[in-house]
């Protein structure tokens, strides 16, 4: 069943059961996001998709559309909030894009361009985070983890269904961990998929890097916004 909702003063037709963030994309409205993956269960961790729904700020990936919903996406106050959240993520970890192998393919970086971030107003924390390189084919560059939980929730050992990634500790002490034994069982394709799933340059494939020159990288060729609006899933 379809019904209409209002997004940025425009009436649009949406399907019942659809998540707001998808409904918006299908109607040409891009909502920045970092933890959501179309077609997968919502994680609701980054909050970068915050919009105003019937006046209340809400994460767009967490709400199913309802008839008559009034949504503001590009209203200045809520746009400012999205930008602040992206900025907070930069100051919280250690991000040095020019030397990062994910640059040009990184969703955090792409979203930062989308929200027109320049420098973070939050003090940079320069946290000390240990690297993890024990797995044969995966490298965890924890400096860049944004705790989106994609790897925790969406990557599983095929045979046992067990979690390969997990977050240990809580709050500011949270840390991404990997089960080395299970990680070593992953096929090269699965390793590649895990690295692709990570929105940032935290989960990296060993032995590959900087494959595409600047100008031909994933988001150089086609922006994150366009990919989202065309319904690409990653």
């Amino acid at each position, binding site marked *: 069943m379809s019904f209409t909702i209002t997004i940025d003063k425009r009436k649009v037709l949406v399907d019942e059961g659809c998540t707001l963030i998808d409904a918006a994309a299908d109607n040409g409205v891009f909502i920045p996001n970092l933890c959501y993956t179309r077609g997968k269960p*919502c*994680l*609701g*961790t*980054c*909050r*970068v998709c*915050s919009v105003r729904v019937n006046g209340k*700020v809400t*994460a767009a990936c*967490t*709400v*199913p559309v309802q008839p008559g919903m009034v949504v503001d996406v590009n209203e200045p106050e809520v746009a400012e*909030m999205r930008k*602040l*959240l992206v900025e*907070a*993520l930069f*100051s*919280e970890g250690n991000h040095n894009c020019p030397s990062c192998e994910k640059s040009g393919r990184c969703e955090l970086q792409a979203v930062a361009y989308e929200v027109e971030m320049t420098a973070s*107003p*939050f*003090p940079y*924390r320069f946290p000390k985070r240990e690297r993890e390189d024990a797995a044969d084919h995966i490298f965890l560059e924890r400096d860049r983890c*944004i*705790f989106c*939980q994609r790897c925790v929730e969406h990557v599983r*050992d095929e045979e*046992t*269904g*067990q*979690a*390969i*990634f*997990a*977050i*240990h*500790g*809580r*709050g*500011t*002490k*949270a840390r991404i*961990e*990997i*089960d080395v034994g*299970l990680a070593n069982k992953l096929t090269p394709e699965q390793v590649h998929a895990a690295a692709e799933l990570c929105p940032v340059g935290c989960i990296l494939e060993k032995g590959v890097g900087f494959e595409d020159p600047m100008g031909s990288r994933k988001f150089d060729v086609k922006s994150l916004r366009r990919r989202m609006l065309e319904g690409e899933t990653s």
Partner: protein
Amino acid sequence: MDRFVERLVAEVLDRFGSDRTRLMDMLWEVQRARGHISEDAIAALARGLDMSVPDVAETVTFYHFFRTAPFAQHVIYLADTVIARMNGYDEVRAALIAATGADFGVHDGTGQFGLDNAPCIGLSDQEPAMLVDDVVFSGLTPEKVHEIVAQLRSGKSAEELANPNAYEKTSVHYVDAVAEAKILKSGPVMFQEGRDYPALVRSIVERTPEEIIREVDASDIRGRGGAGFPAGLKWRLAREAEGAEKYVICNADEGEPGTFKDRALLTHAAKDVLLGMIAAAHTVGSRTGIIYLRAEYWYLKAFLEGQIEAFRAEGLLGSDILGSGLDFEIRIQMGAGAYVCGDETALIESCEGKRGTPRVKPPFPIQHGYLGMPTVVNNVETFALCSQIIDKGGAWFTAMGTEQSSGTRLLSISGDCERPGIYEIEWGITLDEVLKMVGAETAVAVQISGPSGEMLRVDQDRFRKFCYSDLSCNGSLMVFNGSRDLLDIARHFTEFFVNESCGICTPCRSGGVDLLTKIDRVIAGRAVQQDLDDFRLWGKLMMRTSRCGLGTTAPNPILTTLDKFPELYEAKLNDAKSALLASFDMEDAMSAFDSAVDNLVREDV
């Protein structure tokens, strides 16, 4: 692999049917037998539960009380709260270090004593207080600390010290001996003696669920856990929701600093709580109830189990309750030290053996709760009140309180007053009346509803009323006189939220730290007007975009003190006409340089 651990884990797995949703219980069993949960134990649990090792460790490392390395025979947790700090915390802390030879986070060398901090342990009316093994000691002074430590050294157990008359653990005398419930005013609803429980249960099961809901609806009772959701509506929605099973959970996490009324109810009105749960179970059609009890209240566990057992023995719990066909069992789920687990969805995750991460809503617990089934979660006090409403009627309840806020509620009052303790008040009472009642003539500021609530200014807010449309207090009230440093208090509360943030969402995980850094800057006299504006902007960001109530309320300590006592902040602002930024900290910058040099030099060799 340690043979003993292997056997222990095998036993524990067996006891819980290798059911991974009971991981919290299994972890407690291991920790209580071994003092910690070793890598080996985690690996053995993972094997037995068909989980990966990091997945099991994800739960272990989330909770404050779970330890992955051996620490000490007696781990002493000293409650670090603003109230304790007003009542000699520093001296007690120093005495603990001196008496035990241990330090915070470091044991004494022999492994007999280890010290650690804990947030509020539910004894704000008698602080400083500490948790030792399964019991607590309150009203601490340096002398008392030395005495307790000396006794422990001589081989006495903490329990023997806290319970010198050797009462049975299942008796209320035991609980009272360990942690006194200072009920200074019990009104017309709570803590009533001589109730005929078999008759009351009979009157519940003989009525239809509709009749019960009608009574609860008629009382207009709203949940006492903080959000104030109408209890009747919650029960109705859970009743109407589709589900093969339904669950009733009593939220006894009582983690909000300054609250201790649920502890008193569980001690002196435990059967009322059970009765309320039975009513809810009958109403929604549930066969299983859970009391989620914070680990800080371990000394209540045996007593509560005894109360449940007593009900069972009389046929008031179990299968076919009083021949009515209703089956209902209640189990106790112990928490393990996490304030966020008071959030009903985090609590459910914890009951399922996971980290206490608040869920994305919708769906709500009444649709998709424990094990994915419709679940009613209510506060301890809500169940206790419902037990009376069902007995005496909704109209009896609405006759008390105000038009919009019916009935009574318990206040846990602490801080600068002559008579800290628990008071039952009718909604509609003014702040002024409350302050007079507790002997707080010198009060200047009052924090209501704990750190997540707001700071009131007595000279402005004196005649405001406690009711849902004005001061909808969750029960905690901390009183401060003019000698207290409110900026320090706001800082302490802010730090509490930083420590307790689950860390899953950006605004709370990150924003809390930024607020804390900034208030430190204010306190150090290095802030400018822009910093105060940032408080408002960043605070709003957290309030609006956080995933759960922890993050949405975490800015309150700063925002409400800034709102009510702006002069305290303004007096700290730096208006020096120096060429350097006010925020520039010369000492810090120099030490950063030194440590950078140190690091580089060390890496070179």
